[in-house]
């Protein structure tokens, strides 16, 4: 009984100390995200914005691209199933200023490569990425997205994005979603399932 009482006391004291320490730590950190509620984004896109699940990496993404996509969600022209489900609501009340701020913030974060594609397919993906398949009217991606998949202005950075995200975007363009994002629907329509798989694999490793 005494032992239990003592244990209980220690526990109470320990939990109190822990609580105080944590509160102190919390209070001591500068509120770097006070104005910009980045947690609204990192909630799904991962704490370092490296993407999680269906939510793509947004860290290091092109600022102009991020802005354009936020607007596309807002005006509902980007109508992929996941966009519709998550991003329409998330951007419904987003002001253009805040969209710009978010874009600026996330574009400034360092990006990590997902490296979750099929390594065996990466070589084929590289050929398609760099050269296209002219016989099949598949354009080369490199001309718009750059040799390291770095993107350009409002053309997104692709290097190191997750295999699953890239794949579903390409598939969904082929299915008619987000038709306003020309010329990507045209590109996606010419790609076979295998080629999409290979491209997504290659890009997931590209840094």
């Amino acid at each position: 009984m005494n032992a239990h009482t003592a244990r209980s006391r220690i526990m109470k004291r320990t939990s109190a100390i822990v609580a105080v320490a944590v509160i102190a730590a919390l209070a001591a950190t500068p509120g770097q995200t006070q104005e910009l509620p980045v947690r609204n984004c990192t909630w799904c896109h991962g704490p370092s914005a490296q993407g999680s699940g269906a939510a793509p990496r947004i860290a290091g993404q092109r600022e102009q691209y991020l802005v354009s996509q936020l607007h596309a969600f807002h005006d509902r022209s980007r109508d992929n199933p996941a966009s519709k489900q998550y991003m329409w609501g998330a951007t419904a009340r987003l002001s253009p200023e805040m969209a710009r701020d978010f874009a600026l913030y996330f574009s400034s974060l360092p990006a990590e490569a997902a490296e979750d594609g099929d390594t065996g397919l990466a070589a084929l993906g590289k050929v398609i990425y760099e050269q296209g398949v002219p016989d099949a009217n598949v354009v080369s991606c490199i001309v718009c997205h750059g040799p390291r998949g770095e993107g350009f202005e409002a053309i997104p950075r692709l290097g190191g994005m997750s295999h699953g995200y890239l794949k579903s975007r390409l598939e969904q363009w082929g299915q008619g979603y987000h038709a306003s994002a020309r010329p990507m629907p045209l590109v996606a329509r010419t790609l076979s399932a295998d080629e999409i798989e290979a491209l997504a694999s290659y890009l997931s490793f590209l840094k």
Partner: protein
Amino acid sequence: MPIDARRTGGSRFGAAETLPPLAEGRRRAFHARSLLVVGAVGLTGAVTLGLAGFSSSAKAVPSFARQTGQPCATCHTAFPELTPMGRRFKLNGYTITGGTEPWEAPPIAAMVLPTFTKTKVQADTPPTNPDGYPIAHVNDNFIMQQASLFYGGKIFDNLGALAQGTYDKASQHTYLDNTDIRYTNTFNFGPLNALVGLNANNGPTVQDVWNTTPAWGFPYVAATLAPAFSPPLTQVENGWGGRTVGTGAYVFLNDMLYLEGAAYHNMSKGMLGTLGQTCPYNSDYIQNVNAWAAAAYPAVPGLPFPAWQPWSQNPQNYSLACSSSSLAYASPYWRVALEKNWGEHSLMIGAFGFYPEVLPGRVMGYGVDHYRDIGWDAQYQWINDVHAVTLKVTRISEMQNLEGTFAQGIATQFINAMGILNMYGVAPIPGNGPSNPINYLMSFKASGTYVWDRTISGSIGYFHVTGSHDYWQYGNALYNTFQTGAIYSNGNPSSAVGLPNSAGLIFDFAYMPFSKGGPELWPWANAKIGLSYTHYLSLYGGTANFDGNGIYYNGSSWRTHTATDNNTLFLYTWVAF
């Protein structure tokens, strides 16, 4: 729940044997039912356990949808089951925004839950408690099971809460249901990203974000007017919810590793009363007091309370009569989980532990029961645009060092044997306590849920309870017969073979019309119309006549209890707005 049920069940004191057993039976039936609801099958943290016998549930809280601008399906597959995003919303302390601001629409939501319950064979007695739902029938019960009011959302900055106030129709009272308050922040230490939170809640695993732990495990809703027999539950399952205060801290590292520590403290009876958690009283005691104690014992100065007053006129009576167990000391709880998300997949493996130090029946002087509950759990989810599959498995093993109950049982037996009149009108615990000072109980659950297009869900669950052999704990038909001289069904967990072993299957189908967005007028509304069926494979170590008892049905035909008699069809409608 056998222990609790015994504790709260009929007294063996004095004229107990002469009291109408029916009342006792009702009581026990009621407790068994509430346990089913709460814990085993239990909805979320639902609360109250054997004690009060009400159950509740929290679900897709529309105020969350308003605050985030997200449809229910962002966080829930089939609510209240969470998606990876739902888990992160909770871990972030309900503070994610993106939708309406609190001043535009307060984070208040409401919910009603009308249900209909039908068992394969009607119960021996209508499921209700002495002052509870007055119009329950032995079968086919329609009830507006509960109505809840939520505060759900950000309070300010990084502080957020889910608090649920519930009116429970079956027990006809209002109480503070699942409550979880959090303060969170994020830190980066080099490559390490840490989401740190402080948390206060009112029941173990109420704060947990996976649906493998008892508070939010499958099935998510169950009848408050449930069948007479239900398997016993472990401590972490049977829900200290609503009767304890847990404080703790957690950290979620790199979006992957979750570590949590908490301590649960007892709530004072006064606080329980304030929060609406009525404390079940001992009917024997009341009957004793009202019927004859006052006459037998005129006022005696110096007694700790005026036992002769009608119980209802003296709050202290009520307080003392509270027969629920309480936590004797701060009881630790820990949780470890590793969740890995890749693409559309999410896998979690984890473990948790709860070590309640229980004061049985709040009776001091006989010692404390020490429990050690260790749970292992795993959950796999695959969610894409159309399909969502969730597979869950949980195994909880409990070591019971029943020091206090055992000692009280011996004392009760001694009192009964010696014919000693207990001046307080209350035996230490009713019944004889457990046969063994140390028992074990194991609860295994596995379930799978498939949701199509976020609107139609189908689930199958399997539960299996095994434990050590204990005649007194799990009932003894021969003993009952011998004791009472007549054969009654008392509804008490009764096993002809002294085993808790039970198993069953649960099927659940539901339609959630508003998961992708509610009606135009109020797009945050959520609803779930569901049908569930529980099929008992065995109860208390048997299938046919598992309790060794029988009853004269309709006054003439003799009937025994079969496990499948309890098979329950349950129709429910959740409407939250």
